[in-house]
């Protein structure tokens, strides 16, 4: 059986929804741009790609036409390359990587593009038509949908103070700022020409101060601790990784970034969705026969400071190896794209930092976690 490898990684700049530079770009255009950039970078012909395994959390309107298929066609791939669209909310693109790897390992293809797009400017979070099961109570709807409240619950139960949340977010921005200034995003970002100019930088990173952050009012709960600064912003963006098997690597003389070692998903209380990384990471690590101490690099999504810090503590993650170039609080969180960014970043960092194993993990709305262990290849 072939192993599954992450061969390359590309993403668009991530910019604020509505007010950002990519707000007028349609989702398939942003997705196709990233797919083309990925294949160009890797030097892989499009006609050898079995499938575009794409992710999107709100598949409505412009994002509702099986985006993966539309992205493949718009990217100029031959009609023979197939396309699908996966939904596991915030973890959709990490799931897309796993879906590609799973197909690969059962012999159903040996080269896949996995990734995702979320144009939050154009299809808002929760879509245009939020229609929960009519039998649900308001509390059930809140637990499933109102993720800001889940961050408040976790902050309280796990004693993550306002100051600690602010500090976590501030660190995320500082790390991202340092990476941006040091050109450490340049290799992963495919600049996008909107017609009004080329967008080549992330738009959400801020050189803000703890003092300014401390002045913000709670965004989700009166008297609460979670603010706009300690939540990931609404974002437009797209990301993709190339997932290939052994034969394909040999045939094209490719050097992969990482091998996929293990994977897990887990469920938890919908109202505490932010704790998702804990159990899913434990499961993925166990399946890999490892512990957190074996990890040299960890990319964990920062939906909110509160849940990321609570999960970090529960998993006993060394802050120095966590989100080394910043996380979603600074970079933004285009729901359908984030998972591919985490996997791609983790695989890239293994090489840059000369580490052997890495973990990419996320919480997901509705009370779910997802995790993948990678080994430098």
């Amino acid at each position, binding site marked *: 059986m072939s192993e599954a490898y992450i061969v390359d990684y590309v993403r668009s700049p991530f910019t604020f929804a509505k007010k950002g530079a990519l707000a007028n770009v349609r989702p398939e255009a942003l997705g196709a741009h990233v797919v083309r950039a990925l294949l160009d970078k890797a030097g892989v012909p499009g006609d050898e790609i079995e499938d575009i395994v794409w992710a999107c959390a709100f598949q409505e309107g412009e994002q509702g036409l099986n985006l993966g298929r539309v992205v493949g066609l718009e990217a100029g791939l031959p009609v023979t390359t197939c396309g699908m669209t996966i939904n596991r909310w915030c973890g959709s693109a990490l799931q897309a990587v796993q879906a590609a790897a799973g197909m690969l390992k059962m012999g159903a293809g040996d080269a896949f593009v996995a990734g995702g797009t979320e144009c939050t400017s154009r299809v808002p979070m929760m879509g245009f038509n*939020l229609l929960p099961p009519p039998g*649900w109570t*308001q509390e059930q*709807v809140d637990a499933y949908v109102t993720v800001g409240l889940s961050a408040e619950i976790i902050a309280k139960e796990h004693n993550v103070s306002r100051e600690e949340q602010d500090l976590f977010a501030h660190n995320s921005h500082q790390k991202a700022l340092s990476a941006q200034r040091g050109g450490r995003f340049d290799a992963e970002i495919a600049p996008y020409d909107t017609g009004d100019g080329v967008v080549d930088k992330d738009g959400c990173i801020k050189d803000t101060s703890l003092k300014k952050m401390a002045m913000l009012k709670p965004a*989700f709960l009166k008297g*609460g601790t979670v603010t706009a600064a300690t939540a990931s912003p609404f974002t437009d963006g797209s990301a993709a990784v190339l997932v290939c098997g052994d034969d394909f690597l040999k045939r094209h003389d490719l050097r992969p970034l990482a091998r996929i070692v293990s994977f897990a998903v887990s469920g938890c209380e919908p109202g505490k969705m932010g704790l998702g990384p804990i159990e899913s990471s434990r499961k993925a690590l166990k399946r890999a026969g490892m512990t957190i101490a074996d990890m040299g690099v960890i990319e964990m999504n920062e939906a909110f400071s509160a849940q990321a810090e609570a999960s970090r503590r529960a998993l006993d993650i060394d802050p120095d190896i966590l989100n080394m170039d910043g996380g979603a609080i600074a970079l933004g969180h285009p729901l359908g794209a984030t998972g591919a960014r985490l996997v791609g970043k983790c695989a890239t960092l293994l090489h840059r930092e000369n580490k052997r194993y890495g973990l990419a993990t996320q919480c997901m709305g509705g009370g779910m976690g997802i995790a993948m262990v990678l080994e430098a290849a």
Partner: protein
Amino acid sequence: MDAAARHDGPPLPALLAGDNEIAGNSEASLRDIGDGLALFEIHRKMNSFDPAVQDMLEETLARAGRGFRALILANGSDRAFSAGADLNHFLGLIERADFDGLTRFIRRGQELFQAMKYAPVPVVAAVSGVALGGGCEFALHADAIVADAGARFGLPEAKLGVLPAWGGCTQMLLRAQAQPAVSGPLAPAGAVFDLILHGWVSGSAAKAREKGFLRDGDAIVEAGGDVFAAARARAIELADGYSPPDKPLITIAGHSGWLGLMQPAYGMGYAGRLTETDLRIGGAVADVLTGGPEGEYLWRVSEDDLMRRELEALVALCRTVETRERMAHFLKTGEPLHN
């Protein structure tokens, strides 16, 4: 006679001062303004609606098609097309706990506006100044609106503790559902819900058009232009071969949609940006816009079905202390109370 000359007529001030009243009382008049056109004029403070205005509108609609071939709603005021229901009258009913009287007043408003919408003659609203609350609903039931560029439209009832119940929720939902840009089983209701929950009032006619108060066939007259003359021309244009609109069926999203509409509202409530009273009003508005608790996803209901909900919801809100406080505070201070 060419078209431009035919549309010419005496200016509005001359018509309002003329000896042309067909019927009238102390609060409103029906005037014959020539060319087979009639003018319905309210002449009271902020041109608000009280039972006497309703009497005259009833009289007017009873004559539609016999005495005139098109009706224009105008009054010559730059300040107010109409500020809606007379709040003194309204609050008086509530304070006397005369909920039967309140029900009659609201139901009669609904029936009159519906009768106007489906009258055998076209109706054109010439709007200058504010068209708020019931005044906005009055204009929404016309076949066409001709608005001064500075005209302000809005349904700010929630700020007074109630909801639009003279068909405002219903007509705005119909308008939103007719817009291709806002599609899906809930999205049109969502747009209307936000406007009503937050009591949004437009700063201009152009803004009102953006939010769906004005439709494609409605006109905006630039500053300094003659709104009445444009309304007159529009009325003549519509009169030839006019037939009243078909009664529409309205697609509702049911209780699932109610949960969807209320989710962001509850979120604002938790964050302290909406009060319990706001959420109660929001819940009532969401109820109307989604067809109520027994409504089912994608059922199609009539205007009457939704307006019955508007009425029931309004009366229920008026039985609460917080609604009475909001209304009394506004009457006393001119400012909304955010209780």
